[in-house]
């Protein structure tokens, strides 16, 4: 069996050449974000008292479930803070990077027939997988070194060389693990979506196991690779063995992947591709059904995400007062208003953020119509007995429903976690009203998108710029003190901040009417123009 790995070196260089932008961008962004956060900690929490105050707010199960168990909370140094608040999320990002890179160079290439070309050349049967593993391992290795030495070089008190190297190594080890597990799935599943799906599933399970374990039963956390690296207690006790464990398991998985690769046929997988449906369900057989079906997975993911986002904001509400007293920046953002608690004020700010984030999936649903047009698929519908009005309204209906569902879920998430973390609970009607009042502003954004699709299809994606503008002026407006007219250029700037402000029927009505007007114009334009493709 000599020559199984022939030309692996050349292939590795070739993969590096293909990713000469992608890999450096990943590594550098991870490193720069890590450095920035570490430095911002020293700015935000100048004194030991500040840090202990923050440690107090971290002492609740919701926080533990989210960011992991806190080590060294009684002496919350910058290092302990970094490992507690940042390591898990950075590790998840590293896992995602590894999953995407491995899939790209294994099953995606195989699916598109490129590995067939490689294999027809004098290369070994395992060379491509071997090269892909090499490249992604190297990526993780350099990332670990860059972050490790970089953090040490920042020379922040309590972040010494050993701890920093362990921090990097923990990230590298989790990268190794997900590189290896993705390589195994690339042998099991026949298509790249399956590989990515299975790998993300493992990542999700790892996160959830660790969350449950950290809150209730520590043994459970030790089943999850994310639990392993957090168990290194970076900057606190600096245990190296969990890292070695993670790396060891990764190598076993690699050998399994290579073995499976060696015994299977090119293009096949071990998990049988289950045949799909022979017939379309009743639900699918309309433009509306099709449009929903195409976006189903995305909508469900966003729905879960919005609920979790709401819940994670809600979980910090209980300790808000302690939190605010210590942070100047936050005081500046929320000038106290008589008769209302900080929590209530904070909710109004959260609502505007959550409304703007909920607008993203709604606009995506609407812009899907343009994407379909560019891929030449709308002509399948328009060449049948489907009018343009029906097509655009299907897309609008989904978009409006999405805006409503996402905002509601975010509010419900906020309420459900908030009522647990606040001692005297929260009134759901207040929370829900504060959220739902943002719908007219979201509809203006949807209407604007419809208008652009009707009249300026080439630039329809510029609506994102407007959303970003809204985010900047409304969210940061309080902090940077923009002039009033700047926020009034955004529909979100006109929404009354319930419960602090009174309901402003006029503003809300005008927004709703503008939204409807823009939508009507969108229909007029869409019915008249050429369909591209």
């Amino acid at each position: 069996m000599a020559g199984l790995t022939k030309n692996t070196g050349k292939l590795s260089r070739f993969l590096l050449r293909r990713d000469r932008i992608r890999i450096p961008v990943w590594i550098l962004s991870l490193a720069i974000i890590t450095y920035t956060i570490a430095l911002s900690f020293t700015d935000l929490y100048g004194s030991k008292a500040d840090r202990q105050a923050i440690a107090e707010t971290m002492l609740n199960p919701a926080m533990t479930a989210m960011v992991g168990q806190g080590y060294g909370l009684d002496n919350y140094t910058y290092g302990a803070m970094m490992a507690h608040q940042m390591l898990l999320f950075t590790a998840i990002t590293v896992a995602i990077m590894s999953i995407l890179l491995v899939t790209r160079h294994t099953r995606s290439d195989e699916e598109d027939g490129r590995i067939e070309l490689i294999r027809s050349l004098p290369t070994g049967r395992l060379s491509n997988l071997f090269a892909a593993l090499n490249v992604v391992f190297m990526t993780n290795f350099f990332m670990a070194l860059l972050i490790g030495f970089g953090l040490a070089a920042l020379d922040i008190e309590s972040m010494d060389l050993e701890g920093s190297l362990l921090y990097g190594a923990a990230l590298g080890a989790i990268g190794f693990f997900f590189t290896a597990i993705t390589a195994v799935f690339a042998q099991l599943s026949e298509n790249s979506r399956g590989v990515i799906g299975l790998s993300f599933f493992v990542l999700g399970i790892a996160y959830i196991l660790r969350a449950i374990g950290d809150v209730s039963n520590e043994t459970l956390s030790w089943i999850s690779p994310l639990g392993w690296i957090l168990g290194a207690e970076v900057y606190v006790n600096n245990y190296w063995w969990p890292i070695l464990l993670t790396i060891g398991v990764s190598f076993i998985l690699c050998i399994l992947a290579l073995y499976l690769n060696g015994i299977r046929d090119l293009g096949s997988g071990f998990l049988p591709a289950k045949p799909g449906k022979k017939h379309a369900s009743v639900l699918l057989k309309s433009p509306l059904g099709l449009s929903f079906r195409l976006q189903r997975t995305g909508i469900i993911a966003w729905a879960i995400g919005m609920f979790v986002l709401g819940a994670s904001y809600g979980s910090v509400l209980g300790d808000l007062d302690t939190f605010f007293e210590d942070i100047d920046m936050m005081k500046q953002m929320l000038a106290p208003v008589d008769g209302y608690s900080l929590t209530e004020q904070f909710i109004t700010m959260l609502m505007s953020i959550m409304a703007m984030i909920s607008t993203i999936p709604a606009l995506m649903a609407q812009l899907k119509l343009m994407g379909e047009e560019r891929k030449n698929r709308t002509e399948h519908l328009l060449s049948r007995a489907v009018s343009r009005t029906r097509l655009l309204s299907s897309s609008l209906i989904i978009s409006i429903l999405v805006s409503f569902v996402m905002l509601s879920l975010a509010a419900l998430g906020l309420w459900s976690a908030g009522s647990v973390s606040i001692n005297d609970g929260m009134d759901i009607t207040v929370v829900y009203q504060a959220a739902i009042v943002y719908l007219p502003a979201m509809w203006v954004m949807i209407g604007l998108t419809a208008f652009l699709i009707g009249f300026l299809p080439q630039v329809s994606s510029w609506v994102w710029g407007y959303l970003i503008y809204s985010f900047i002026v409304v969210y940061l407006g309080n902090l940077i003190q923009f002039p009033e007219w700047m926020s009034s250029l955004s529909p979100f700037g006109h929404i009354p901040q319930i419960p602090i402000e009174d309901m402003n029927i006029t503003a809300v009505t005008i927004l709703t009417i503008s939204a409807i007007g823009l939508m009507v114009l969108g229909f007029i334009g869409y019915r008249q123009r050429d369909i591209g493709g």
Partner: protein
Amino acid sequence: MPVLQTTNLTKKFGKFTALDGVNIEVNEGEVYGFIGPNGAGKSTTIRILLGILKATKGNVTIFGKDAWSDAVSIHERIAYVPGDVNLWPNLTGGEVIDLFVKLRGGNNQSRREALIKRFELDPTKKCRTYSKGNRQKVALVAAFSSDADLYILDEPTSGLDPLMEKVFQDCVLEAKQAGKSILLSSHILSEVEKLCDRVGIIRQGKIIESGSLSEMRHLTRTNLLVETKQDIVALSEVEGVHAIEREGNEISFQVDTEKLDDVIRYISKFGLVKLESAPPTLEDLFMRHYEGNITAGAGREV
């Protein structure tokens, strides 16, 4: 009344004139071949017929209705197959066929099953796994399982293997026998010759030739290969003879079809030993139009 008629159809994209006064007429029960080189305006024309693009000038009527303003009611009676079929990667072929049939209105399950069998399509596979030929089959099954009166087919056989091309041709002929009308845009001339009653040739946005195949054949030449006992004297001076080439005792040349009688009379005087003739093909016609020399004397070898 024709099923489909365009008069003076013009389409401009900015300053570029994609179509310049295109006139097409498809009658009931007729297969109309629409041929032309890449970028000549075939697909643009078809997309205007479907109301996807709006004509700059001219009229398009299908079933007596306006192709732009009455698009939806027209489409209830139309089946369309694009040349480049893009499908949704996460739906199966069967789901897409059902969706397409349903969107047109009507539902013929037994025909759907029969066509899936004839085209040897596996409807349970996701579209992402289909080859180009299989995606084409999905569109063809959806089109032929619907009970349309007019079929608009834009290079429908690109990507199909010869066996499947045959199945496709059978489907077209069956539709024709059932009195349906078909507009077939194609590059495969043998297919057009086999299926079409009338042909329109488009080039740079203009119809440069149209009519029935027999009407068009007067424009082309018959290829002759002869051997005679005596040398044919002054063959090159006979009217309607082109592209003379000698190979040993044999002479090959082309004859304008309408001069065939005169030419045969003339050469028979020299004692024919051998006479082979090849009929004018659409390909000859097509090639001559593509090269833009309809009347030039320099003929070509087949």
